[in-house]
């Protein structure tokens, strides 16, 4: 298979901006192209990832985004739902041999959008789930309750994820929410949906993220140290929550596919840093288990051991993760960008102290983790 390299990434901050979505997108894409020294028409193909009308109030989002993202008169496509898919599709286009470079752009203007759950309510089918009030947060709350009951994970352990991630975010210039908080602060924050507290739920952020991909030859020309695409896995689960064991998600399938493609046998040792999508604090613990970083039910103990801290052997979400920055659709591409920066050693103040040769990026959408994707990057 053809190798694909990440040449460069750029991201925008998550706090509300006065720029319009077009200006905001243009600025981030231009920044990326300037860093590489390329013109937009020198890029072979564009893959956009934008949310649809329920987020932005405009149907067929890429119709509006194409000019600002640079895709005018270029072979173009768009992924909806998850921007990590746009990354993968960009890789696939290069691997096909048709293209030498691909620019992947994910964008959303959270400050102009309705609340996340106004949108996620519409993921529910209108006949059975929606009348029950199933949306992302209520589904996550049921999953958290089951997680605590079955494995004895405590509310304190879940709250500690917030302490770690918002603390890490203090060193990430792009993060939206950053704060030094204590476990008590999290536990005392407003109850959103028992047992989920306000601080355990991700915010609603702005975000444009751009990633330039290139074939091996081209990547080596454009960057002194490209980051290589090593593995990918994705898996869907059944739709209705009652049909699933909420603690046995398809993340295991997605991860095992990604690991086998990247020839990783023991992820807890061979993955050096992970950027995980945790819209709800406890999910970081659960996802760590299903990614094979620890034994089943051991997510809380893994965190307690300090292993996933910035200076631990397997730092998880040194950027602050989705709890600190949640641009809904772009959040998956942000994970990829952050993982790539860690390998490049260019993460700045939140660069992890350990040497990073292999990094993992993860993304999820759907109720209680219906659809997971895992990307492995390598030096």
């Amino acid at each position, binding site marked *: 298979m053809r190798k694909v390299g990440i040449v460069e990434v750029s991201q925008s901050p998550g706090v509300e901006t006065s720029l319009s979505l077009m200006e905001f997108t243009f600025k981030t894409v231009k920044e990326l192209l300037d860093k590489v020294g390329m013109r937009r028409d020198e890029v072979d193909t564009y893959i956009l990832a934008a949310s649809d009308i329920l987020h932005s109030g405009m149907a067929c989002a890429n119709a509006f985004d194409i000019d600002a993202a640079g895709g005018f008169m270029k072979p173009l496509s768009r992924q909806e739902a998850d921007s990590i898919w746009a990354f993968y599709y960009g890789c696939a286009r290069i691997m096909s041999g048709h293209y030498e470079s691909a620019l992947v752009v994910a964008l959303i203007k959270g400050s102009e959008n309705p609340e996340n759950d106004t949108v996620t309510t519409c993921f529910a089918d*209108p006949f059975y789930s929606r009348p029950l009030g199933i949306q992302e947060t209520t589904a996550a709350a049921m999953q958290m309750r089951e997680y605590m009951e079955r494995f004895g994970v405590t509310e304190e352990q879940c709250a500690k994820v917030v302490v770690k991630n918002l603390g890490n975010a203090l060193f990430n210039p792009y993060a939206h929410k950053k704060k030094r908080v204590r476990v008590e602060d999290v536990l005392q924050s407003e109850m959103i949906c028992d047992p989920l507290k306000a601080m355990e739920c991700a915010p609603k952020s702005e975000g444009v993220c751009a990633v330039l991909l290139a074939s091996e030859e081209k990547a080596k020309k454009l960057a002194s140290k490209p980051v290589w695409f090593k593995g990918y896995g994705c898996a869907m689960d059944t739709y209705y929550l009652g049909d699933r064991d909420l603690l046995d998600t398809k993340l295991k399938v997605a991860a095992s596919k990604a690991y086998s493609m990247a020839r990783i046998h023991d992820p807890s040792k061979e993955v050096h840093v992970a950027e995980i999508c945790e819209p709800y604090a406890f999910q970081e613990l659960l996802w760590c288990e299903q990614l094979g970083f620890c034994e089943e039910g051991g997510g809380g103990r893994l965190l307690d051991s300090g292993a996933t801290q910035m200076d631990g052997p397997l730092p998880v979400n040194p950027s602050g993760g989705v709890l600190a920055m949640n641009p809904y659709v772009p959040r998956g591409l942000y994970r990829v960008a952050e993982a790539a920066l860690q390998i490049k050693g260019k993460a700045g103040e939140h660069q992890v102290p350990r040497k990073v040769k292999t990094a993992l990026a993860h993304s999820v959408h759907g109720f209680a983790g219906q659809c997971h994707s895992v990307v492995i990057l390598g030096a």
Partner: protein
Amino acid sequence: MIGTGQTKHGRRDDLSYPEMVREAVKAALEDAGITPDDIDAVVFGSMPSMMEGVALNHLYFAEALRAVGKPILRSETCGSTGQSIAHTGIYWVASGMADIVLVVGSEKQHEGDAQATMMTIPEPFLVRIVGGAPAVFSMQAREYMGHFKIDEQKAREAAAIISVDCHNGGFLNPYAHIKVQVTKEDVMRARIITYPVRLWDVCPSSDGACAVVLASERKAKRLCKRPAWIKGMGFRGEEYFSGDSSKAVWRSAIEAAKEAYGQAGITEPRREIDVAEVYNPFTYQELVLLECLGFCPHGEAPDYVIKGVFSPGGELPCNPSGGVLCTNPIGAAGLIRLAEAAMQVTGKAGPHQVEGAKVAFSHAMGGAEQFNAVTIVGSEL
């Protein structure tokens, strides 16, 4: 392409939306002679969530798509979604990361309000007042006639011929939605929708789904006696604001077709292509497309249409299936074009088969007249 499947399109109150998706998936798997376990990956697409009120409906269709435990991608580029999902599947196979990919597009328009959704493609500040498909495409028709100084009566007659041909095609096609035969006079006397577009110049709102099975060369040769081979693909998008570009000399259509012809090694499209499925929600738009896709010189489509070049039995028959004009489940419509093209080159088109078709052209258009996508298939590798 080793299999295609379509639902019976129309008003499908007899099925839930997931059941309708399943009908197409089942048909495609049966046509390909494979089981769900053989599928490595799934690509899905439909119009935005406002259409039927369920957002990211691939989640809702996980079982119907036979995607549980499998990787999935979801592509959406408005009206051209059907072609974009096909391209996604093709690149997935071509990347070497999957051997068999199931591609599915769907829409159940009777459960929503298509034009309400279309109204939200234009942004809310400057251009929303001209939203909705009939307004936009009627303006394109006027721009086209004005740009090339085409006599209105001549364009009217040509558009009517397209309508008659398509409705005859739809009448023969077992999957088509609108099954009404019309005469030129019926079309020209029909009630006005937005000038110059009349009722029989406009596509319906349909419920329907389409699925195709793509396979790597090795697998296709093993599983299928007569696969349809992908010969070329093209996609281009242009400026968002309509006034920034010409829709009479429609650059995204011209460039998308050129790219596909380059890959397929086609230099004289009208001669080398045996049958074309051109996305034609509006008859007048087909006139513009026939020129921009390179089937005839600019400004001359009405003459060619009146001469019967694109009619059944003509040099390049267009839309023998009845086209989008007779069947328009939007998220599926672009994929139906490709499925029909594949059916033609594999001799499976049934009553609307174009005899001996070896090279077939498929196309879709979307956005605020912004996107054009082309896929060419052939009977030979």
